[in-house]
C-alpha cells in the first residue's frame, strides 16, 4: 500500500519553489515543482476495503495534518 501526502493548493511550498528555481537555473523549462511524501506500507489484512479504511484513519491520526495536507491512498495486493 502507498500513501502519498502532498500540500493542499493555496499554501506556499518553499521546498518546491526553491527546487523549481534551481531547475530553471539549470536550463529546464519547469513552471512548478510540488513536493510530496510517499509512505510505503506492508500489512496483512482480510480485505482490500478494510485496509483502505485503516489507511484513511492512519492519515487522519498521524500522516497528514488537515490544515495543509491532502492524501491519496493506493492499495495493492502483494504477491
Amino acid at each position: 500500500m502507498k500513501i502519498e501526502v502532498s500540500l493542499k493548493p493555496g499554501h506556499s511550498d518553499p521546498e518546491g519553489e526553491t527546487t523549481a528555481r534551481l531547475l530553471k537555473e539549470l536550463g529546464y523549462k519547469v513552471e512548478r515543482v510540488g513536493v510530496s511524501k510517499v509512505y510505503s506500507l506492508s500489512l496483512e489484512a482480510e480485505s482490500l476495503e478494510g485496509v483502505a479504511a485503516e489507511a484513511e484513519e492512519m492519515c487522519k491520526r498521524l500522516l497528514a495534518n488537515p490544515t495543509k495536507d491532502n492524501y491519496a491512498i493506493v492499495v495493492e495486493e502483494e504477491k
Partner: protein
Amino acid sequence: MEANLEQRGLAMKREEINVCVLRVGGTNCDAETKRAFDELGVQAEVVHVNEMVKRRSLLEYNALVFPGGFSYGDYVRAGAIWAKWILAKLGKELKAFVYENRPVLGICNGFQVLVEAGLLPGFEGISPYPEAALATNFPPGYNCRWVYIKHENDVKCVFTRKIPKGKVLRMPVAHSEGRLIFAKEKEKQYLKRLYENDQLVFRYCKKNGVYAEGRFPTNPNGSFHDIVGVCNREGTIFGLMPHPERAFYWWQQPDWTRRARMPQYGDGKLIFESLIEYLVKKF
C-alpha cells in the same frame, strides 16, 4: 496580592511548586528550562516520557513544559510523532491536567507538539485533529537568530501576565518549521477568533515595535500575521517558537560583550515569572 495570600497560608509557596520538563530522544534545552525554574526558586524535574508512562503521573506536577528540539527526528512532521505518542500513552492524564487548568508550555518543538496534539489553538478545547500547522519556514531552511516580538495579549495568557501589552521583547529562534498557518478557507475566521478570545500572544516586529508584515528576517519564518505564539481559550496552554530559556540570563544575550552594563536577566525571565505567579495563586 500573592504575598498576602502566601502570608495567610492560602497560596502555595514558591518552593512547593513542582514543574515537569518532559524529555524524549531529540529534545533540547530541557536543562536550560530546568535551570530557569531553579533560579526562580521553583522545583523542576526533567522526566523522560517513558519514565512518566511507566512509573510516574503528570498529575504529580503543577505545570508541564514541552521543551525545544527535534523529537523523533522531526519525522512525518515536526512534533507530530511525539504529539500522537503522548495522546496514545498519556492522553487521559494530559486531558485531566488541562481540564484542571494546570498550565502547559510548549517551546519551539514543544509548540509544534501542542499544535499537532490539538491542544493549540484549542478554540473549542482539545481538537481531535490539528487546527493549525507549523509549516516549513519561508524563506526555506533552518533559521537561528535573535528576533523582536511584541506582546499582544490583554489578560488571558497566564504565561505573560507580568508583561505589559505592547511591550517588545528579544528572544532567539532556532527552527526550520515555524511558519504558523491555518487552513486557507479558515484563515480569516481563525484570526478573528484569536483576537476575540484574546488568544494571540506575540507577533514578530522590529525593535521599535513596528510589525514585520511578513518580511524576512524580522519575521524569520513567514508565519501568518507575524504570529509568534498563541494560547488556548483558557490562557493556560501557551506555545511559542522563540526560546525564553535561552534569553534568561544577561550572559545569554548576543550583545553582552559590547555593552558596559547589562540588566541581570533577559526578557525570557518574564515568561517564567508570570507562570510562577499564576501557580502561586492557583494552588
